[in-house]
């Protein structure tokens, strides 16, 4: 039925489907071009346009029939496999890492912005956004003054004062003791005064902590525009009971719900302030005078400190730095090409080299042990169960394959629980007290053990298949010749098996060499090694690389991670290339 349908599709409907598909692709590309131009995503645009044209050309002409069947896969391969590899190589030559993640213009913007500081004696202002008679935005500004005797709260744990020993209260025990505290919470949640919405809409804020409302002490109030500050007569200013200015005669308050529309007007405001800086809004109710501390000279590509006169120049590796003190750099930096530094650091910088070597060795040990043990166990079981007249073979096989059928990530997470030193079932059932995931040695045993569990069914399956493909006549013949059964094994079966399975063993080695889940989901690469902040005792190269790039709290070094990933590629590639050259993969191709 389906085949008939497909056969019928060979005519016009197939053509229509094809045209619809191409139409969608072309449409998508055409539609995306303006966005990509405005984003300046030139590489992406080139790739997309070339891919689309290739698709059109190959699917609409009949000159390249085989290409019709390869083109879509090839496009995916190019975009998500080849381009990432090349991109990865280019990242390996950069300093892309914590502190150097953005572009240079972004970094300059951030440095300029963050360098505008309040000067020593600068003032914060209470701010009231209003409009004057002509509808222009005017900020009603009142300097914030703090009463000298602002109390320091004794419950502030960071307050330096050491208060008297309060004596210890006992909590808990009978429910009554903890009830009151809980009840008070219920009250606080439902008390209307604690609900934020009421205050939000009233347009005031709750910052009026310490000002005194006596008129004589009140600071002057100004009307601020880009022309400067204009002091308002005290009689024109209306205040609430805390002394906060709530309105000014001649100006209409901007209603609270319109504040969110003021973004661009706020941005344009730059009120010259008394300290020689610029007063800018810092929210909706406060403003501050900011004085720049650094100036950027675009022509020389340098920053100059207005305080110290130090000139920070581009140090060529992604930062503006003080030439007299290389560690005095301005942050943030930006991404910059730094040549082979990442590649050579792996060998020259002992901070990177020492853990790298340890991880490198363990990676090989882990991969080899994994392949060897799974193969030995899998093959042994295959031999044991490969007996024609044996009951229950089918059920044994089904159960033995179970670890292979369960998604590996689940099994690994489960094992991490079972091996948990103190809660884990293994220690508590056996009564052992083995620090499975805790001690470097046992953690290594654990990752190999779990990998054995995960991997032996595969080896069992392929060994069984291979055993059964050995012609029984061959074995019979050998036996008739008088060879004893072990001899039969060694001379006849084993070579045949190895020929059949060698490519699989090598593939398995390559897989385990990069068996990220098997390590990361079980131990996270831990436990920690003494000589590294990042690498742990069970880390293999791939998990180590991942942690360098993405590990929380250790900073991210994408450049270094990319460089190491290229080393991994070279190692795995070499091993695989040798094996492929030897295997018959290509000879089997009947070209």
């Amino acid at each position, binding site marked *: 039925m389906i085949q008939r349908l497909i*056969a019928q599709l*060979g005519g016009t409907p197939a053509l229509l489907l094809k045209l619809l598909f191409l139409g969608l692709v072309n449409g*998508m590309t055409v539609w*995306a071009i303006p*966005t990509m131009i405005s*984003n300046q995503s030139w590489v*992406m645009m080139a790739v997309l346009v070339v891919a689309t044209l290739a698709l059109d050309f190959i699917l609409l002409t009949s000159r*390249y029939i*085989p290409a019709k*069947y*390869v083109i*879509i896969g090839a496009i*995916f*391969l190019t975009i*998500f*496999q*080849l381009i*990432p590899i090349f991109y*990865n190589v280019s990242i390996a030559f950069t300093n892309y890492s914590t502190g150097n993640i953005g572009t240079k213009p972004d970094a300059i913007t951030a440095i300029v912005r963050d360098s505008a500081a309040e000067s020593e004696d600068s003032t914060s202002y209470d701010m009231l956004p209003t409009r004057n008679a002509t509808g222009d935005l005017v900020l009603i500004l009142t300097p914030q003054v703090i009463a000298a005797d602002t109390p320091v709260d004794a419950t502030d744990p960071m307050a330096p004062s050491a208060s008297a020993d309060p004596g210890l209260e006992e909590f808990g025990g009978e429910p009554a003791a903890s009830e009151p505290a809980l009840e008070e919470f219920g009250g606080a949640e439902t008390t209307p005064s604690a609900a934020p919405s009421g205050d939000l809409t009233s347009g005031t804020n709750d910052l009026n902590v310490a000002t005194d409302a006596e008129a004589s002490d009140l600071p002057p109030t100004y009307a601020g525009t880009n022309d400067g500050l204009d002091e308002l007569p005290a009689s024109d200013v209306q205040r609430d009971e805390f002394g906060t200015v709530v309105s000014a005669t001649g100006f209409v308050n901007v209603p609270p719900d319109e504040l969110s529309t003021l973004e661009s007007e706020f941005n344009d405001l730059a009120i010259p302030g008394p300290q020689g800086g610029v007063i800018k809004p810092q929210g909706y109710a406060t403003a501050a005078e900011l004085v720049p501390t650094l100036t950027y000279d675009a022509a020389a590509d340098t920053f100059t400190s207005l305080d110290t006169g130090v000139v920070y120049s581009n140090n060529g590796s992604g930062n503006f730095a003080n030439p007299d003190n290389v560690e005095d750099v301005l942050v943030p930096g930006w991404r910059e090409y730094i040549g082979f530094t990442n590649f050579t650091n792996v060998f020259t910088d002992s901070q990177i080299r020492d853990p790298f070597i340890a991880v490198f060795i363990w990676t090989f040990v882990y991969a080899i042990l994994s392949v060897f043990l799974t193969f030995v166990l899998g093959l042994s079981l295959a031999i044991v*169960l490969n*007996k*024609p*007249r044996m009951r229950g*073979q089918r059920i044994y096989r*089904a*159960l*033995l394959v*179970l*670890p*292979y*059928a369960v*998604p590996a*990530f*689940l*099994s690994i*997470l489960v094992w*991490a*629980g*079972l091996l948990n030193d103190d*809660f884990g*079932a293994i220690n*508590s059932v056996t009564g052992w007290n083995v620090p499975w995931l805790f001690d470097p040695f046992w953690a290594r045993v654990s990752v190999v053990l779990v990998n054995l569990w995960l991997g032996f069914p*595969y080896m069992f399956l392929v060994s*069984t*298949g*291979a055993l*059964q493909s050995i012609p029984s006549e061959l074995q019979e013949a050998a036996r008739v010749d008088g060879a004893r059964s072990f001899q039969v094994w060694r001379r006849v079966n084993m070579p045949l098996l190895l020929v059949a399975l060698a490519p*699989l063993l090598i*593939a398995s080695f390559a*897989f385990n060499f990069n068996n*990220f889940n098997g390590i990361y989901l079980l131990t996270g690469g831990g436990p920690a090694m003494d000589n590294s902040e990042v690498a742990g005792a069970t880390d293999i190269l*791939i998990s180590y*690389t991942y942690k360098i790039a993405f590990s929380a709290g250790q900073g991210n070094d*994408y450049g270094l991670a990319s460089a190491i990933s290229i080393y991994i*590629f070279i190692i795995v590639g070499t091993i*695989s*290339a040798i094996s492929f050259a030897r295997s018959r*993969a*290509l000879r*089997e191709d009947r070209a």
Partner: protein
Amino acid sequence: MTSPAVPVVRVAPIPKQKRQTFVQWLKSNGWRHAIAWVAVAFAVTPVLWVVSAAFTTNPTISSGSLIPTDPTLDNFKRLLNNPDQPYVNWYVNTMLLAIIVALFTVLIGAGAAYAFSRFRFKGRKVGLMFLLLVQMFPQFLALVAIYLIMAQVSDVFSGIGLDSLIGLGLVYLGGAMGINAWLIKGFFDTIPMEIDESAKVDGASHGQIFWGIILPLAAPVLAVVGLLSVIFTINEFVIASALLQSPQKLTLAVGLQQFIGEKYSENWGPFAAGALLAAIPVVLLFIFLQRFIVGGLTQGSVKG
């Protein structure tokens, strides 16, 4: 139907046995059973442990019984009713993603295999070698680059870039052609060319031969490739954890890993329930397709 290149586990019929003494039995088959029992225990115990924990209220990881004494569904309720850990979303995301990616993987792989098996063209050998070579670079080694590419894609096509399951699926398809094309081609090569030739004589186009003749004949290997793809997608952790961000868009691997994280004793019960639910369809699929799998495995693919 089964090609000679795909050995399938054949279970020999068990002939009636003559009565034998215990020692005889032990010598011939008994020790085999003993070893098989030990191996089965090794293979199955962790699985049973999880099943048991899933049905035990507040189990500790060490709760010592393989059979829950008082089975309940509490853990499933806790698992499914936690809005911060939208397990149902993870489940649906993962299964849909796995099936769709597998479908496209099979089509892409089969297309490439058809071209390389049935046509002779310039660059064919080079192309085949190239596929093998590229496959050696595991996609997730270029994770940083993939991430940055997807970030750019997001800026143009929001919805298929970062934090998007479609985007994640597209990335997975980047690895669809390589080894799968080889695997399928191996099978296609065993389908006699004469079938194509006679269809061509009857006026069939290359498309009709591909869709109507070759694909149906290759169903076993396509099933294996599809299954391996499903397993790969379900297990894939690294790329998914880097690209996906919103809690409701995670896959099971990422979501459950975060869920269990450092809180083994706290979340063990619901985790066990979640693991059980997640494993069931995969195990069923595996059992269903098992007769194809051995053949597929010996062709050189490794569980990802």
